[in-house]
């Protein structure tokens, strides 16, 4: 029969311990270092005025191109001012649209990364639950195995008992009917021996 399992045989190996320690340290480093960076990026993506920058540049470009050299012809022109207004407005709109597009792209990037981390956390929780569930199932299975072994042992003992009891009773059937063989349980548990009948006659007084 095998010996009882020892707890130390089931302890984590040195590699396993190091792996867990390094992983935990890396996770803490990530949380301390990269976590704040993503939050900073989130705030920047909402706060930073990209529109102001782009619109300012667009306005400067337009005015440099269309109004930096005043002339008499421009002053006398009927539609020069309207053209300038139209060009400047269109440039402003371009600047605003490009800045808004860039801001959204940045925000989507931040959300995508945050969502990726959340997905990793979710997968981690599912994995932790799976580990727990496997442990519970293994424990239940082990309990069931012990229960089954006890049942089998009890059944074997019972069968052996009945078989032996029957054999004992059979042995009395072949003995003299005059012999005082005691009660049922006595006969069941004790096989007949000729010495038994010699030692018991005075008990029942039947041989008189």
């Amino acid at each position, binding site marked *: 029969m095998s010996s009882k399992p020892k707890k130390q045989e089931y302890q984590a190996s040195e590699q396993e311990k190091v792996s867990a320690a390094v992983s935990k340290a890396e996770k803490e480093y990530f949380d301390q270092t990269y976590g704040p960076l993503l939050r900073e990026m989130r705030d920047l993506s909402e706060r930073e005025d990209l529109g102001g920058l782009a619109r300012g540049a667009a306005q400067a470009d337009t005015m440099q191109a269309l109004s930096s050299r*005043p002339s008499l012809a421009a002053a006398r022109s009927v539609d020069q001012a309207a053209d300038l207004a139209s060009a400047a407005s269109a440039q402003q*709109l371009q600047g605003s649209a490009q800045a808004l597009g860039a801001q959204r792209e940045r925000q989507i990037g931040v959300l995508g990364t945050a*969502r990726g981390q959340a997905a990793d956390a979710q997968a981690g929780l599912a994995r932790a639950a799976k580990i727990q569930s496997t442990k*519970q199932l293994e424990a239940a299975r082990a309990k069931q195995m012990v229960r089954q072994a006890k049942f089998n042992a009890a059944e074997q003992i019972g069968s052996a008992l009945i078989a032996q009891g029957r054999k004992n009773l059979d042995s009395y059937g072949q003995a003299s009917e005059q012999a005082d063989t005691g009660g049922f349980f006595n006969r069941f548990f004790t096989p007949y021996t000729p010495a038994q009948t010699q030692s018991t006659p005075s008990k029942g007084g039947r041989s008189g």
Partner: protein
Amino acid sequence: MALYDNLPLQKNTSVSSLPEVKDPEKVYSDISRQDYENYLSNFRDFEERLISAKDDTSLIEQSREDALKQSQIARGVQQRNVERYGGAGLSAVQQQEQQRAMQRGTQLNLAGNLNTALIQQREVNQRTLADLINIGQGVNRNALQGLGEASSMAANRAAAYNNAKAQHKSNMIGLGGSLAGAALAFFSI
């Protein structure tokens, strides 16, 4: 160098100095839960604001303001130019015509800018929506995967319980059979 000095880095430089993880399962579960809570507290509001940005109208509103403001600026430029050249020899009729052209230009500019802004706003919003849908697909996929795993675990547990019950029942029937057989054999003496 100064940048690295300010970072709250751990000073552990050797693996042997790292603290031992006593209960990796608990640490794993705690960290995963904490990560998800961090996401909720740090990014959920941001996510909702970004989702509502798919209906953004800031470009359209801005284009109205821009058209009016740029007309004022252009009018000022024209005014200064005319003054610079001492009236530029413009007659009263020419000056009136300049003003009318400016008014027409302002209105046309407003309409044209608004139309362009509508198109560009739509483009930005559609792109944002497409990106959000893409992110949402990942969220949905992960959620379904998590549910699938939970369901599979529940099914495994139920199957194990049913197996245990069946085993017990089979044992009891076997025991009954053995007892009945023994009794028959016993009384047939």
